[in-house]
């Protein structure tokens, strides 16, 4: 109710400032009839003289209802989390910093970073291939994307892990000709390599589509202007097209990184000890399933939050010059404020 009073007061001051009639102060809303009535008497050219400064704000009773409902629900959730003993927060606290868990996190992060790197590099190549004038390259890259997006990652992981089943030996040499190096597949494909191949090659297909979309969203006039200035195709791509495409590439790539972070948990099927696998191996012994899964979730959320902050910084970098108005993010705003205040004091 206190909230509802303020706008009415604002309306009253506005009324006294502009027309100072009793009709406007009498009503809480703008009171169109009275306003036009007095306006007709005082305004020039037959229109009422009005100053909208300090106008009464529109009230939103539904917003208040929604907020209260949400707050109640949140309070219930917190109380459930705190009072329900089955969450075993003491166990969560004990394991959340455990060294074993730390190793799992390290594996998860390592896999995420390497698989994403493979995916991005591959994605750029595939995207350029799909946009090239060479029909063979276009077809091959299209086929790659079709296959790797169209089959489950889990299957791809298992296939790479069991590659020796299909190809007992891997040789490098002239195609259909002499071979220079031959290696035993089982020794070559470690679980880590299988995981990197499985996740990275799959990611490449998704990144290819994201990057292709980004590249296509750049105005063709940009490449034309670059060509007219004598830039090579490679330089045009690197300096002109890609930086502008980044604005469209970064947000979905951020989601891909987070998906990848969680997709790495699939590698537990090939016995690689990532965060989830480590947690599972502990609760298989101790049967503290829920608290240990909470530990894993806490860490996934921590990493995701850090990624989120990183993403917003990268986004701001590539947004430079993109809009007419300077992007005013929180940090830029804070920095500006600080600079201005130092200027004043010095």
């Amino acid at each position, binding site marked *: 109710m206190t909230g509802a009073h303020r706008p009415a007061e604002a309306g009253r001051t506005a009324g006294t400032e502009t027309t100072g009639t009793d009709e406007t102060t009498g009503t809480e809303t703008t009171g169109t009839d009275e306003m036009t009535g007095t306006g007709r008497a005082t305004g020039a050219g037959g229109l009422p003289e009005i100053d909208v400064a300090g106008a009464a704000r529109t009230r939103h009773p539904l917003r208040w209802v929604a907020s209260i409902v949400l707050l109640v629900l949140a309070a219930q959730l917190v109380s459930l989390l705190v009072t329900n003993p089955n969450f075993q927060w003491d166990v969560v606290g004990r394991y959340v910093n455990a060294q074993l868990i730390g190793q799992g996190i390290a594996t998860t992060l390592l896999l995420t970073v390497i698989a994403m790197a493979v995916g991005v590099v591959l994605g750029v190549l595939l995207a350029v291939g799909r946009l090239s004038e060479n029909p063979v390259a276009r077809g091959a890259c299209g086929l790659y994307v079709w296959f790797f997006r169209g089959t489950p990652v889990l299957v791809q992981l298992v296939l790479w892990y069991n590659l020796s089943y299909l190809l007992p030996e891997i040789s490098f040499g002239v195609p259909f000709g002499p071979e220079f190096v031959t290696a035993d597949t089982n020794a070559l494909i470690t679980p880590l390599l299988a995981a990197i191949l499985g996740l990275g090659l799959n990611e490449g297909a998704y990144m290819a589509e994201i990057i292709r979309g980004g590249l296509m969203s750049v*105005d063709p*006039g*940009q490449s*034309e*202007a*670059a*060509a*007219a*200035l*004598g*830039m*090579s*195709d490679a*330089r045009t791509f690197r*300096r*002109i097209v890609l*930086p*502008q495409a980044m604005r469209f590439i970064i947000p979905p790539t951020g989601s891909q990184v987070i998906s990848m972070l969680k997709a790495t948990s699939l590698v537990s099927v090939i016995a690689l000890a990532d965060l989830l696998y480590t947690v599972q191996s502990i609760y298989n012994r101790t049967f503290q399933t829920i608290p240990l899964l909470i530990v894993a979730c806490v860490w996934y959320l921590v990493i995701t939050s850090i990624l989120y902050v990183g993403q917003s910084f990268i986004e701001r970098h*590539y947004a*430079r*010059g*993109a*809009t*007419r108005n300077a992007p005013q993010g929180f940090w830029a705003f804070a920095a500006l404020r600080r600079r201005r205040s130092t200027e004043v004091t010095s």
Partner: protein
Amino acid sequence: MSSVPMVHARAVRKHFGHLEVLKGIDLDVGAGEVVVVLGPSGSGKSTFLRCVNHLETIDGGAIHVDGELIGFQASGGKVRHLRKKEITRQRGEIGMVFQQFNLFPHMTVLQNVIEAPVGVRGEPREQVRERAHALLRRVGLADKAGSYPRRLSGGQQQRVAIARALAMRPKLMLFDEPTSALDPELVGEVLATMKGLAEDGLTMIVVTHEIGFAREVADRVVFMDEGVVVESGTPADVLDNPSSPRTKAFLSRVL
């Protein structure tokens, strides 16, 4: 006109699929000459300009710029397509200004201007930077060096685009309707800049609908229609005494 013209186009043909856009264009532009190209929409004006710096590959005829065959190599009676590297070098010597400005929005005005001389020609950055500031002063934008293009008005953007092209010290400048995307009150500032360049002796081919500019600045006016040059002569000849009924019809519509 000097002995070797800056631009020498003979029987230039270009088609897109079945559509024949240029049906044998002949045009000579002397060094320091300003030629204004007029013509109805779809007559092939833009296509011709884009052929001059090989943004489009011509299908027949030949274009020479400053005595050099554009896009091709002729030796021992054989003609071959030039390598990419040579094509980009040739383009770097011909400036082009587009209707839609096409500034690089992720770079500041100064970065736009120095990008090609530094990145393509490998000129020392400091030297180019000085030249860029001088060019920005010349187009009246000395104070905008640090701005991003999207925060400039259309007229300012087009003047930056002119400075960017000039930074490569082109032998020849091509303007494709440089003022058509501008609000009427901004057209004047761009035309004034172009007039300054003409007075400094730059060779220019300008596609425009600004008849006033043609009358005042052009050494020669060329009227194109349906892929051919219909008429060519001094501004007075073509604009006031057109000999072809097609030119007459066009002028009566735009004047």
